[in-house]
């Protein structure tokens, strides 16, 4: 399919211009305009939360800047981390005098740049902490879970850490909430068709018509197996089994996110959700605040992911606390 763009080089900046024009709660900041923050940040002293990453994943990351969620985001080029300058600026924007949590996906470039930015911020007297999203169970074994990639499940850490920060908690406590939420959130995804970098002549990976890549990453990183596509219920079952195998002890309550990578339609997500909901209910597990839609995409890639967060008494109230950003409102 064709892309609607003017120029590959202007893609990110034009996208951001449109994003903030359409969402007046957001503003573009920073020397290069690669930071998104709140138009009316408020001036109450509290912990700030920043995220960031490569472009091409809307509504991730910028779409989650909002009350009870993120304070600022640093934005990179498509599939590239934000540069150190933008990370530093985002930290400054998020700083409300009580320290800043950097909460982003576990990718090399993002990590190096946020690390450098944190060093600079500390030198400026802004205390920082870091929690990495590592929810993709297909990207490394359980033993090596700290090497895993961060994907759609990170929004739950945004939500709980954001809720706690809004209550005025300390940087240590907000950080611990994010860490705990990441630890209890597991995602697995699959791809059905690739996407193209803007302006590129060919897709960034190949997947034959009718094939599915189970466990593929949101940038097309290879997965666990590749085969002809299977019935929706079989896919739902396999994904749920893989996620439940990661549960830390007993669980009775979960939240579920069925996420499209872009092209896969809502209809198909609901067909998947139907099966997941049935099976969880058969297991006596209650679903709290289910989300079905496009929460973390890869432009026009087809495919979906399922995230489970195994709730506990600390996480659940913060998941359910009111929050609002352009793409997710919890009333």
């Amino acid at each position: 399919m064709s892309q609607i763009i003017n120029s590959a080089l202007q893609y990110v900046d034009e996208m951001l211009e449109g994003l903030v024009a359409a969402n007046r709660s957001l503003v573009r900041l920073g020397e290069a305009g690669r930071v998104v923050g709140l138009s009316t940040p408020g001036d109450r002293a509290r912990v700030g939360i920043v995220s960031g990453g490569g472009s091409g994943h809307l509504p991730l990351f910028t779409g989650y800047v909002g009350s009870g969620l993120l304070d600022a985001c640093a934005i990179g080029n498509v599939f590239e981390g934000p540069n150190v300058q933008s990370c530093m600026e985002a930290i400054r924007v998020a700083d409300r005098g009580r320290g800043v949590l950097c909460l982003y996906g576990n990718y090399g470039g993002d990590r190096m740049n946020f690390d450098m930015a944190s060093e600079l911020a500390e030198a400026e007297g802004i205390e920082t902490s870091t929690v990495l999203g590592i929810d993709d169970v297909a990207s490394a074994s359980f033993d090596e879970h700290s090497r895993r990639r961060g994907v759609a499940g990170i929004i739950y850490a945004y939500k709980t850490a954001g809720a706690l920060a809004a209550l005025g908690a300390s940087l240590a406590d907000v950080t611990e909430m994010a860490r705990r939420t990441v630890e209890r959130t597991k995602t697995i995804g699959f791809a059905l068709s690739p996407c193209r970098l803007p302006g590129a002549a060919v897709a960034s990976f190949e997947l034959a018509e009718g094939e599915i890549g189970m466990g593929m990453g949101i940038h097309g990183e290879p997965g666990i197996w590749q085969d002809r596509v299977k019935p929706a219920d079989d896919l739902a079952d396999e994904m749920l089994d893989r996620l439940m195998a990661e549960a830390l002890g007993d669980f009775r309550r979960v939240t579920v996110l069925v996420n499209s990578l872009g092209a896969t339609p809502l209809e198909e997500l609901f067909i998947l959700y139907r099966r997941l909901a049935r099976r969880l209910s058969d297991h006596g597990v209650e679903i709290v605040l289910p989300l079905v839609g496009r929460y973390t995409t890869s432009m026009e890639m087809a495919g979906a992911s399922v995230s489970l967060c195994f709730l506990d008494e600390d996480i659940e109230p913060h998941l359910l606390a009111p929050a609002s950003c352009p793409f997710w409102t919890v009333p």
Partner: protein
Amino acid sequence: MTDVTIREISAIVERARLAFDAAESDLNAADGRFGDGDTGTMLNRLASAIALVDLKAEPDLGSAFRKMAAAASRSTGSSLGTLVMTALLAVSKYAAGQSTLSRQAIPEMIEAAATAMLARGGASLGDKTIVDSIATVAGELKTAPAVASWEVASAASRKALDSFRDRPSRIGRAGRYGNKTIGFDDPGMLAFAILCGALARSNVGLRPEEVSE
């Protein structure tokens, strides 16, 4: 290779720009195998951005490299791009205050870059990254004759590529795939081999009298 001045650097940068423009889709394809398929697009953009930097008025090599690092940083936050910036900052420190760097100092300067890249990226030598290529090139340059040694660099970068091909990646996106990466080139190492090859072919950094030798 000659002693390095800003004139040589400008020529190298221009050659790099052409090389990465030509290699964009090959490098994307190499990165697409276990990564996100953007190494080529990123390097093409990065090299163009650095080539746009006007170095003429820079007082010394240190400030020229610092300007290049700033351009690199502005244009990307990818792993490799950030490591390139880190390398440029390191050589900028190494060459601070000097307007000429003797050809004998070049291997040491490259080593300084590699050391900084390992510190920033958290990789070790042997992890199958661009740093393995850079370190191999620095090592071979040390023992090679000073003249026409872009060819030595090119051969060394190819040697690194060949000898790592059948080893597993241990860091970065590809590092998560361990033994599955055996048999495939690391995109960063491939990029460095492409760069050295292009520099060798164009005799960049060779003064006319050396070329005619």
